[in-house]
């Protein structure tokens, strides 16, 4: 099936379009969304195995030879990320079906979630820099819709900031593409990679690369481009927040990974140093933020930044080991962040407050909930053999291997801050004396919410224990990053 890479984009899109016809039929909405996501996930698994056997899959859309049309490129990196995203959205939608009231469900929430996945999967799959912009816009506009859904005052207020920053970033993206096209005259990533060495003055490419990093850094919330993140994320309803936290910043990071290794890695150490500085700043600011707050959502939100910084550090080192680590960690963080947001969302659901001082003793009434959180928290902190560990280990190894100590030690230190911040939630939210009586219909309700959450954490745990089984896939995913010729040859067949 030569069209396999298109399905993770098309199936959710078809489902979303179908659901546009029947917004008020809540059961249909849930069923179709979940069904489509399951099917999509099955396809992504098939895709992973196909790619692992046959190598990189490409689809020249419209049957136009690359680089004249748009080419979709499913290499292992793309396939893994697409599969992870799809699985995540499946769990989040499942969670959402129990979380949202009917009013939300009949106002296109699943449509927007599906389209968001379309955008994310498209961004992971496309092999064209302008098409990447288009997919960015697809998931951004979906995120705009989701973030304002419900239209509370604070939500609208923070959404404005979120929108504004992203609108600016989008304009800058277009400018960056323009500069690149002006210099190299093509849009296909593979073709760009092929032609960039022919550009007379390589430093021009570096400068354009810096521009791109800033554009993607705005999405990925790299310091000092991160200001929009905490405020706007904190107002979003939990399932939405889970999607944002798990997927959106990661797309920015992925874009840096892809373009840096493929296009902007030549010439000078300037770019690498730039990325390392950004990574370090991001980790530090994330650490500060994570310990500064007593609001459960904000704590996890700042943890996003730490993770992004760690991954970016791995990317910046650009060695086999560090890239493997970055990818391990990227997938881990997507899984576990979504789970954590779902978990803190449930805490807020029970206690009606996001502040730790209003919480306490949850584990007494909801032991499974408590332990699920505990495992997720340890996983986030990178306690072995949970999922966060191996990626971080490889990144640290990569850093030490490059003769650096500061970065690796900072990353290790960040783990402590992560642990500190999430254990705080455990200590004051789950331990301690019960602050309220959590009786009534909440109990069966929470019991339903815990199922997808628990399963997602289980997936993350399995990912950690199965790190060895993942390794061949990770290695294959890293290959085209370390040796861009593999990517180029797969797309541009002479």
């Amino acid at each position, binding site marked *: 099936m030569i069209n396999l890479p298109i399905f993770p984009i098309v199936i959710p899109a078809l489902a979303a379009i179908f659901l546009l016809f029947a917004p008020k039929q809540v059961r249909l909405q849930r069923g179709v969304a979940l069904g489509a996501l399951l099917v999509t996930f099955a396809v992504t698994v098939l895709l992973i195995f196909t790619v692992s056997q046959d190598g990189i899959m490409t689809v020249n859309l419209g049957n136009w030879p690359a680089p004249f049309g748009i080419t979709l490129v499913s290499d292992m990196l793309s396939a893994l990320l697409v599969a992870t995203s799809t699985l995540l959205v499946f769990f989040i939608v499942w969670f959402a079906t129990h979380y949202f009231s009917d009013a939300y469900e009949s106002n296109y929430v699943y449509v927007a979630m599906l389209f968001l996945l379309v955008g994310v999967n498209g961004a992971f799959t496309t092999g064209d820099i302008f098409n990447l912009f288009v997919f960015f816009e697809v998931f951004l*506009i979906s995120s705009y819709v989701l973030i304002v859904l419900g239209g509370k005052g604070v939500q609208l207020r923070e959404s404005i900031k979120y929108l504004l920053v992203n609108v600016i970033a989008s304009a800058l993206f277009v400018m960056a593409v323009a500069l690149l096209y002006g210099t190299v005259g093509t849009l296909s990533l593979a073709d760009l990679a092929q032609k960039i060495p022919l550009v007379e003055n390589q430093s021009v490419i570096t400068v354009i690369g810096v521009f791109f990093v800033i554009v993607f850094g705005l999405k990925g919330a790299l310091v000092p481009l991160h200001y929009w993140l905490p405020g706007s994320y904190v107002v979003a309803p939990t399932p939405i927040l889970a999607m944002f936290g798990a997927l959106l910043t990661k797309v920015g990071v992925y874009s840096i990974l892809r373009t840096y290794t493929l296009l902007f890695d030549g010439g000078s150490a300037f770019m690498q140093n730039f990325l390392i500085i950004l990574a370090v700043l991001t980790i530090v600011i994330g650490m500060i933020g994570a310990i500064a707050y*007593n609001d459960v959502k904000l704590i996890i939100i700042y943890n996003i930044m730490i993770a992004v910084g760690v991954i970016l550090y791995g990317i910046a080192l650009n060695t086999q080991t560090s890239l493997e680590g970055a990818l391990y960690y990227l997938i881990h963080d997507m899984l576990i962040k979504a789970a954590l947001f779902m978990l803190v969302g449930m805490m807020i659901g029970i206690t009606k407050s996001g502040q730790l*001082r209003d919480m306490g003793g949850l584990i007494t009434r909801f032991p499974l909930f408590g332990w699920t959180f505990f495992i997720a928290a340890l996983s986030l902190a990178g306690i072995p053999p949970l999922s966060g560990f191996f990626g971080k280990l490889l990144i640290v190894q990569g850093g030490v291997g490059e003769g650096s100590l500061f970065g690796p030690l900072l990353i290790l230190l960040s783990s402590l801050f992560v642990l500190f911040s999430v254990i705080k939630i455990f200590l004051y939210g789950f331990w301690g004396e019960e602050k309220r009586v959590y009786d009534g219909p909440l109990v069966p309700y929470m019991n339903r919410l815990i199922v997808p959450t628990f399963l997602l954490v289980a997936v993350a745990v399995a990912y950690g224990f199965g790190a060895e089984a993942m390794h061949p896939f990770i290695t294959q995913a890293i290959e085209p990053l370390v040796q861009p010729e593999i990517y180029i040859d797969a797309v541009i067949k002479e």
Partner: protein
Amino acid sequence: MEIFVSIIIGVLTMSAVYMILSKSLLRIIIGTGLLSHAAHLLVLTMGGLKTGAAPVLVDGVTEYTDPLPQALVLTAIVISFGVTAFFLVLAYRAYQELNTDNIEEMKGTESND
């Protein structure tokens, strides 16, 4: 021509940024509109301006302007229209809920305690 347009792009960007930094939401949205104009012009400029006839095949014409940047700009225009429309309505709703269009009065509260 390209130099002249580059300067125009710079001025547009400048005004855009100035507007975006002001307090009124309306001015801010106008600023984003200006910014996308700048971006679109930049795409066209990068493709090379006026190097031939309009990119519609006509017998006997061999030199055409680069169609690709035009197609890209078209896509970008449409997208930024969608986003601007959304932004406008968001501003309107925010005004309804918050009773202000002054961005300074929309200071965030990342609460602690």
